[in-house]
C-alpha cells in the first residue's frame, strides 16, 4: 500500500470528489494560483481551472457566506480557511447561517458545504495563530465536526464530508501535513460517528483525536515497559460522537484518560468525561482524568509553548493516577 502524507491524502480526496461531481468547487485564500498556503490544493487549479478552484481575497466572513449561499442553491463548495484561527471571522456565517438554515426553514434547505483547513497548536506562532477551535464548533447543533489523525482517516473522512448534505467542519492538525501513513489506491470512505481503536489494551482507555494521537501512542509504548496495557481510542468524528465505542472500551478497561489539545473548560474532553461518568459510573475504578491544553492562550516562548500542551509525561502521569500507581 502506498505511503503518502496527510497533505497528499487530503488533496487526493478533493481531487477524486471534484472529478466525480462537478458541483464540487474549492475556494479560499491562496488555494488556486499559489497552490495552497500549505500546498494542500497543489495542482487542482491546473486540473480544474479558475471556475472550480477559486482564489478569494482575505474576507473569511464574505467567502464563507458565499459558500453557504452557493450550497443552499445547489453547489457543494469546499471552503478552505488558511487556518481555523481565521474562521472566527466567519463564525457568524458558520453558526447562524450554515448550521441553522435547515432547522429554521423547517427542513427545506440542505447546506452541503465543507469548511476545512489547519487547526490546533502549531509552533512559535503565539496565541492568535495557535489554538484548537473544535470545541467552538462542536457546540453547535446542525454542524458536523471531524478531526482525523492519520492520512488514511483524513482521506476517507474528507470524501464522506464532501458527499454529506450538511455543513461539515473538517479540522486538520496544522503540524500534521507532512506526517505519513498508508493509504490504499482504491476508493474508500469512512462513515462519520465511528471511532477507531488504534491500539487494543485492557488496563486503561485513552480517548483522543487528531494530532495528540501521536503522543498518546508514544505514551502507550512507554507504559507498556511498565507492564501497563493501554487501549487507544481515536474518535475521528466529534459530532456525531461514537458513544457506543467509548462506553464499551471504558466498560472493558474500567479506567479512562481523555487527551484533547483544546482548552479544558466546557470542552470536547469535559463532555466525554461527563458522558462516561453518567453512563458507565458503575464500571469505573477511578475518576476520569483529562489531559488538555493548559487553560491559557498559547505563549510564543517554546518552552512555555510545549508546557501548555499535552505531552507524553502528562499522559503517563494521568494514566498512573487512574491506576493508583
Amino acid at each position: 500500500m502506498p505511503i503518502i502524507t496527510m497533505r497528499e491524502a487530503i488533496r487526493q480526496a478533493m481531487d477524486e470528489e471534484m472529478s466525480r461531481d462537478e458541483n464540487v468547487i474549492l475556494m479560499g485564500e491562496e488555494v488556486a494560483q499559489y497552490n495552497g498556503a500549505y500546498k494542500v490544493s497543489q495542482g487542482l487549479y491546473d486540473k480544474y481551472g479558475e471556475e472550480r478552484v477559486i482564489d478569494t481575497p482575505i474576507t473569511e466572513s464574505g467567502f464563507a457566506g458565499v459558500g453557504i449561499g452557493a450550497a443552499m442553491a445547489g453547489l457543494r463548495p469546499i471552503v478552505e480557511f488558511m487556518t481555523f484561527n481565521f474562521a472566527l471571522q466567519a463564525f457568524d456565517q458558520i453558526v447562524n447561517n450554515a448550521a441553522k438554515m435547515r432547522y429554521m426553514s423547517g427542513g427545506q434547505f440542505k447546506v452541503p458545504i465543507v469548511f476545512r483547513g489547519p487547526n490546533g497548536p502549531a509552533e512559535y506562532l503565539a496565541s492568535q495563530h495557535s489554538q484548537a477551535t473544535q470545541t467552538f464548533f462542536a457546540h453547535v447543533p446542525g454542524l458536523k465536526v471531524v478531526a482525523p489523525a492519520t492520512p488514511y482517516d483524513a482521506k476517507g473522512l474528507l470524501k464522506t464530508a464532501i458527499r454529506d448534505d450538511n455543513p461539515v467542519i473538517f479540522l486538520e492538525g496544522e503540524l500534521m501535513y507532512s506526517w505519513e501513513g498508508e493509504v490504499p489506491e482504491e476508493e474508500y470512505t469512512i462513515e462519520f460517528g465511528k471511532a477507531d481503536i488504534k491500539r487494543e489494551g485492557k488496563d486503561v482507555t485513552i480517548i483522543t483525536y487528531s494530532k495528540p494521537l501521536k503522543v498518546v501512542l508514544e505514551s502507550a509504548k512507554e507504559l507498556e515497559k511498565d507492564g501497563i496495557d493501554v487501549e487507544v481510542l481515536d474518535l475521528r468524528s466529534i459530532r456525531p460522537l461514537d458513544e457506543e465505542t467509548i462506553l464499551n472500551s471504558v466498560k472493558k478497561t474500567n479506567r479512562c484518560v481523555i487527551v484533547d489539545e483544546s482548552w479544558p473548560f466546557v470542552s470536547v474532553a469535559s463532555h466525554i468525561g461527563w458522558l462516561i461518568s453518567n453512563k458507565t459510573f458503575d464500571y469505573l475504578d477511578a475518576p476520569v482524568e483529562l489531559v488538555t491544553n493548559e487553560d491559557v492562550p498559547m505563549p510564543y516562548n517554546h518552552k512555555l509553548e510545549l508546557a501548555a500542551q499535552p505531552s507524553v509525561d502528562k499522559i503517563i502521569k494521568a494514566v498512573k493516577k487512574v491506576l493508583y500507581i
Partner: protein
Amino acid sequence: MKDLKNYDTKLLKDLLFKMLLIRRFEEKAAQAYGLKKIGGFLHLYIGEEAVAVGSISNLDMTKDYVAAAYRDHGHALATGLDPNSLMAELYGKITGCSKGKGGSMHFFDYKKHFFGGNGIVGAQIPVATGIGLKIKYNKEDGVVLCYFGDGAIHQGAFHESLNLAKIWNLPVVYICENNHYGMGTDYRRVSAIDDFSIMADSYAMNGKQVNGMNVLEVYEATKEAIEIAKNGTPVLLEAKTYRFKGHSMSDPAKYRTKEELEKYKQKDPIISFKELLKENNIISEEDFLEMDKQCKKIAKDAAKFAEESPEPDLDELYTDIYA
C-alpha cells in the same frame, strides 16, 4: 419614468394589489400580535411596500432568487408565497412556511427561490452573493435580488460581498432599503455619507438612488439594474423609503418627530400610486375599494387558517437539524 400609457394595465393593477396585500396582511398580523397570538419580534414593512413590490415584480421566480433580512414579510408576499403559510408561520404553526420553526424573521420557500428571512444584520448579503455564484457557475439565466437596511450597509459582510460580486462578475442586485432608522438610530448620525448609492463606486459597480416611495420608479430602476447585473456587473440600488411603524412592535419610535412621520405618510406609496392610476383612468375608486376588500379577505382568511392550524408535534423539536 415612462408614460403610464406604455405599461400593461395588468402590471399596474398588480403592483397596486401586491402593495395593498402586504399592507393588509401586516395590519392583520399587528392585530394578532396585540392579541398575543404572535410572539417575539415583529418587524413591519408598512410604508416600504413599493420597494419589494416594485423590484420583485421584475423577476421570474423559476430562475431568479430573493434574499431578505428580518423585515421580510413584504418580500415574501411579493415573491408569491402563500399568505396562509406566512401567517401560520407568524403563529408558529406546523402549516407555516418554515413549519413554525422560523417565525417572522425566517420566512423561507426553497421551491419558490425565497432564501430568507435572516435575523442577523447583513448576514444574508454573502449568502445572496453565493446564490449569484451558483447562477454564474451553472451558466443560468437568473439574477439575485438581495435586500438589507441602512443599518446593514456598514457591516463588513456588505463590503466583502460587493467586492466579491464584482471581481467574479456575479448577477446580483443589492438593494439597500434606507428607511432612515437602524432601529432607533437615524442613519445620518452613524453614516459617513448620506447617499449610499455612491458606495458602489468603491467596487467599480453601478449605483443608483431611487425614490422608494414610488413603485414605478423602483420597478424601472430594478429592471435596468437586472440587465446590467446579468451582463456581469452587479449593481447597488439605494431605495429611499420610510417605515410608518416602529422598528418592531415593541418600539414606540419616539426618536422621530410626528411632523416627519406625517410628511412621509403624505407620500404613502399605496395611496399615491392609487391616485396616479385613477388620474390616468386605469382604475376607479370603486375598483380600488374592491381590491382592498379582496386583500382584507386574504389577510383575514390567512389569520383564520393560522388560528385553526395545529401546533407542531413535540417530535418536531428534533427534526430538520441534519439532512
